[in-house]
């Protein structure tokens, strides 16, 4: 027990996804620069994490080298990547990234370390996790996002996208070319490398009974998990409900963690939502205020499929291990009466929730609505 870290998310050093994890330097480089090397070190640690209702739950988490939980790994297409994984737990673990077969590690014994080496694939959103005793270690918390920046992400017309030119479809190019150009989308193009224009939402669920069994040293048959899994906590990047957004300029679990989740911007500032489900239950993320465009999905072998037919939806299905990149266009909420845009009496920001519509996920500890898988986004001002 004493070896465990106590984690009240966001307090002091324990802030998920700090701004420093953004590779500003990398993004400023020439598009067609030389191949580079990236060295990343992460560790596996047991923690006692505080849930949104104050309950303490044993979890296993990945940490970055500087001691931050749930690191987001960012690399650049074509770069030679080396990830070293240290196992500071008392059980053996592993590491894998669907869609990147070379990134699979051998079993890592307690106290040991292993490395994986691979060439970063085409641009997009990937999910890394511990595949041992699947799905056990993944749902205990051993998962995280790997983002691959495309080497050449623009469309032939020059509009930036998050996808490599070679994997772009005509539909994707038409959409990103329309941003800032078509009458429907006055304002800006999508802006790569701007954390305000890109959010990563890693969804997960926690069944504390299962975690407690592991913590007490019981052996759990992985094949028995799915039929008995009864999640009581639902997370975005490890946070729930009130903690997932900025309120009155502050955030209960650290401003950086909340800002990393909550989209905020003016009309005409399209924002990418990288949504992933590391858990075991299917989610139905539903967004108010704007429909979103479903840009991509992972296919069976983990590779990224950019859509040939990009639907505009207000709810999308996110099955276990699914990864979908969505575009929140930040367009004028279309059903505000035209004669009253921009609204005069009702002030900005306009605030719209995103919540999972598979409503059991809106709870914490069996109640506490809405302290589950929910956040919101803000439109701070109209274009004019």
């Amino acid at each position, binding site marked *: 027990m004493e070896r465990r870290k106590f984690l009240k998310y966001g307090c002091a050093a324990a802030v998920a996804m700090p701004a420093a994890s953004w590779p500003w330097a990398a993004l400023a480089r020439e598009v067609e620069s030389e191949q580079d090397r990236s060295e990343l070190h992460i560790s596996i640690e047991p923690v006692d994490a505080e849930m949104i209702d104050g309950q303490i739950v044993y979890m296993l988490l990945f940490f970055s080298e500087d001691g931050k939980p749930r690191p987001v790994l960012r690399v650049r297409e074509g770069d030679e990547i080396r990830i070293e994984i240290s196992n500071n737990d008392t059980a053996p673990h592993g590491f894998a990234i669907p869609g990147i077969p070379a990134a699979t590690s051998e079993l890592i014994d307690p106290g040991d370390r292993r490395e994986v080496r691979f060439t970063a694939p085409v641009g997009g959103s990937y999910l890394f996790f511990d595949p041992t005793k699947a799905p056990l270690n993944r749902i205990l918390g051993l998962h995280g996002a790997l983002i691959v920046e495309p080497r050449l992400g623009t469309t032939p017309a020059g509009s930036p996208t998050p996808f490599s030119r070679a994997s772009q479809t005509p539909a994707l190019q038409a959409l990103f070319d329309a941003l800032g150009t078509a009458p429907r989308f006055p304002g800006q193009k999508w802006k790569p490398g701007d954390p305000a224009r890109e959010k990563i939402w890693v969804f997960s669920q926690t069944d504390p009974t299962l975690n407690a069994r592991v913590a007490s040293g019981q052996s759990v048959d992985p094949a028995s998990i799915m039929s008995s899994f009864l999640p009581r906590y639902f997370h975005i990047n490890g946070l729930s409900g*009130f903690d997932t957004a900025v309120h*009155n300029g502050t955030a209960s679990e650290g401003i950086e963690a909340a800002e990393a989740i909550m989209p905020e911007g003016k009309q005409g500032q399209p924002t990418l939502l990288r949504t992933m489900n590391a858990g075991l239950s299917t989610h139905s993320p539903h967004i108010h205020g704007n429909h979103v465009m479903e840009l991509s999905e992972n296919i069976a072998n983990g590779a990224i499929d950019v859509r040939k037919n990009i*639907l505009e*939806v207000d709810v999308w299905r996110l099955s276990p291990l699914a990864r979908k990149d969505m575009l929140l266009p930040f367009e004028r909420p*279309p059903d*505000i009466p035209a004669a*009253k845009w921009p609204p005069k009496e009702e002030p900005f920001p306009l605030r719209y929730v995103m919540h999972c*519509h598979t409503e059991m996920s809106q709870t914490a500890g069996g*109640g*506490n609505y809405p302290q589950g898988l929910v956040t919101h986004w803000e439109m701070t001002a109209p274009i004019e």
Partner: protein
Amino acid sequence: MVIDFKKTGVKGKVTFSTFGCNVFQESPATPDKIRPDVVIERAVHTDGRWNTPDGKRVRYWGFADPLSPIAADRVAPYPSPLIRVRQGQVVHTKLKSKKNAHTIHHHGIEPTTFNDGVGHVSFEVQTEYSYQWQPAHPGTFFYHCHRNTVLHFEMGMFGMLIVDPPEGPGTLYSGGPTYQVERIWVADDVDPRWHIPNEHDAGLCGEDAGLNRFEPKYFLISGVFNNKTMLDSRVAVEAKLGDRILIRLLNASYSILRLTLGVDALLVSVDGRQLGAEPWNSPKLFPAGSRIELTTASRFDLLITPTQRGVFGVKFEFLHWITGKVQADGAGIAQTRIIVK
């Protein structure tokens, strides 16, 4: 009329408590109000009783329509009465809460925050409020209560919302295809343990109300229990050869809905957005026998143009959100048919 936004989530102090347990509750005027083309009224009812196929009485809640010419819609309808308006009309939906606060969220309609019906970022309606919106897109939407949504939506506080193009019903969108037969299929599943009376605020202040555990026992399509869906005219479709049939499908259940049709269907619109309106999408054909899956709250508009007479089967399967198995040990199925004469 002066609106004190500080008494709402718009300008008030948002805390852990204002998220649910002590949420903003007001009956303000509508900001930026303009003269409506259509006024709709919805009054909360909590008095519905289903007679279930296994002989039980199960309570449900919903919205009644006090202005409806149909008597049943004024009392305790399920699902709540259809809202049907036209693209471009300025609409006021006047909600009358009962003794407890509720809201109306017009799902898929995108108005201002104040008119969006989510309490913790605006307010819940204590007695009365008029939600103002002007639909820009024709299509299939729905509306539901957003207070303790996990419970109130399951309790039945939802209804369909259709936006017709200015031409009115019978045309999908201006310049688009017409249809001669229209059927709304609303799939819902019911866990009777959640329908115990007087639990309006269950779980809101932190007590464990078991709302993370959903084990549906009853399955309904458009208000019809699955033992009657095969023949009931609210579900089964009758058409003439040459008719175009429009199915407006909503998954209002907490399951993944899998629809299998014995006839080809063209997906023409999703979540109130016409496919093909923009160059990045187009209608999608589901050949007969395809598995058409909808996550909770999704809407698919399916256009069916039968090329022969016959009886075509329709199967709805409700799949568990974790195991993916058919709910209730395989009983979570409803069936109906499309008869083409």
